[in-house]
């Protein structure tokens, strides 16, 4: 798949005080994918989104949206984008219907009540359409922000921390909405602190740290490449020490010799030193086990390792 909808090249952003928020960012987002941008607080996630959406002026570099320069061709570029900001910002005294309709007009589209109705229903906001925003719960306000961003039928949707402060049930509902959008061809870029969110939804993961893109990888490949796994064998008879054939840094005895733990990753498997080789050695050495379980490191573990590594 090589059909970029966003191409960011050599993007730098230095704020007036001298703080460099982005350092030579190169990033390509493919049409129709869900891209998760991960990074610790202050890493530059929101600045990156803000530059792409026109909220922050870039110091250097270029952003192309569907082939249109975000500065020179701002009209064509921005009409393709919907943005759901991190903060719950809205006009407290407006009704849901009015504020979503306002957004559509603001983005240069003719009124289309049928589309607004569809968006509100898809976000279960239809019953609240006459309510003032100030009367809504935090989760509902977040949905209104999504509805505003979708009001003008964007091809690209930026979700900056979309489920922050949202309860678990609502979060899962939102994931469904986002999946539905992707199925309708919308490209989605989300930043999140909830790694499980990226793990659950993203096709590709980008990690940003201190203003630099540290890594961009297919989620599955990333998990396979960097995710370490652990195989724990519960031995029939405890061992006091490992026999010579099993003296390996990836193997250790725990639980007073009752458990043998093998830590490995995708690379070892590729090199043929994986589980089959271990099991064959155990058989040769006459070591038997009564149970086993495996554990794979989560995206969160990978992310923490990456950020720590480069700190």
């Amino acid at each position, binding site marked *: 798949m090589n059909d970029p909808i966003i191409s960011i090249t050599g993007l730098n952003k230095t704020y007036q005080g001298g703080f460099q928020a982005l350092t030579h960012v190169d990033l390509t987002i493919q049409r129709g994918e869900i891209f998760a941008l991960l990074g610790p607080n202050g890493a530059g996630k929101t600045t990156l989104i803000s530059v792409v959406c026109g909220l922050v*002026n870039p110091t250097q570099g270029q952003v192309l949206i569907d082939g249109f320069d975000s500065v020179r061709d701002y*009209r064509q570029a921005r009409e393709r984008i919907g*943005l759901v*900001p991190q903060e719950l910002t*809205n*006009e407290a*005294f407006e009704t849901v219907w009015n504020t979503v309709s306002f957004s559509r007009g603001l983005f240069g*589209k003719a009124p289309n009540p049928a589309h607004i109705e569809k968006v509100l229903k898809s976000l279960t906001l239809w019953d609240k359409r006459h309510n003032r925003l100030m009367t809504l719960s935090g989760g509902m306000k977040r949905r209104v922000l999504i509805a505003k961003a979708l009001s003008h039928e964007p091809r690209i949707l930026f979700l900056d921390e979309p489920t922050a402060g949202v309860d678990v049930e609502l979060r899962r509902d939102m994931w469904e909405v986002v999946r539905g959008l992707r199925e309708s061809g919308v490209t989605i870029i989300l930043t999140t602190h909830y790694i499980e969110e990226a793990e659950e939804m993203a096709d590709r993961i980008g990690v940003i740290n201190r203003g630099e893109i540290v890594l961009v990888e297919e989620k599955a490949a990333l998990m396979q490449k960097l995710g370490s796994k652990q195989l724990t064998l519960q031995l029939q008879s405890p061992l006091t020490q490992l026999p010579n054939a099993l003296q390996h840094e990836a193997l250790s005895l725990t639980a007073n010799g009752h458990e043998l733990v093998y830590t490995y990753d995708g690379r070892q498997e590729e090199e043929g030193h994986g589980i089959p080789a271990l099991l064959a050695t155990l058989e040769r050495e006459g070591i038997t086990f009564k149970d086993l379980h495996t554990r794979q490191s989560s995206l969160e573990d990978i992310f923490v390792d990456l950020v720590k590594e480069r700190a």
Partner: protein
Amino acid sequence: MNLYPVRAIYMAEMARTRRTMLQSIVSPVISTSLYFVVFGAAIGSRISEIGGVSYGAFIVPGLIMLMLLTQSVSNASFGIFFPKFSGSIYEILSAPISYLEVVIGYVGAAASKSILLGLIILATSSFFVPLEIAHPFWMLTFLVLTAVTFSLLGFIIGIWADGFDKLQLVPLLVITPLTFLGGSFYSIDMLPPFWQNVTLANPVVYLVSGFRWSFYGISDVSIVASVAMISLFLVASLVTIAWIFRTGYRLKP
């Protein structure tokens, strides 16, 4: 130019006016009526005619101008300040609209409201004093130009202000004193020569004088000077706004 965004901003601002009808329309009308009662009826009855016009009628253009200036500045400054304050300005800045369209939407709504208010006050004043409008075209021209110019000034203040105190600073400490000292309630001929010269440095004098001329054909300064002054204000405001949007001053980091 895309008219949908302009319409969206304009209608949203006008809807805000409707929501705050009491504060937006009723309150200025009541306070203007009180001016008529105090200055027109109670005190004005003891003051002789000025340039052949009764004192009550003489102050009508000045009162309308006072409301026009303060309301234009307040409406426009609040209109753009509130999205900045609430954070919803992100939507304006990320929308595919030109700065000109943003300004037309916000300033157009603020000016419309001020013009409406000016006409309501004019109608109200006809209940208190006999009115005549010698030059209706110029009366409307001054009304519209002043409303637009001071709404542009309000828009600049709304972008500059980083708190509610600053939002009130210019209307209370600059606009209102200049209007009071700008010949709203008197002709500058009534002042000693020294203060007459000082008053000529007050730009509002030219606006009030020109507006009064459109009613009664009498003025403190020449009509050409009045038109030049309002045009100067208009151009200065437009240049400032163009600079704000070009640099992203207080809008885009």
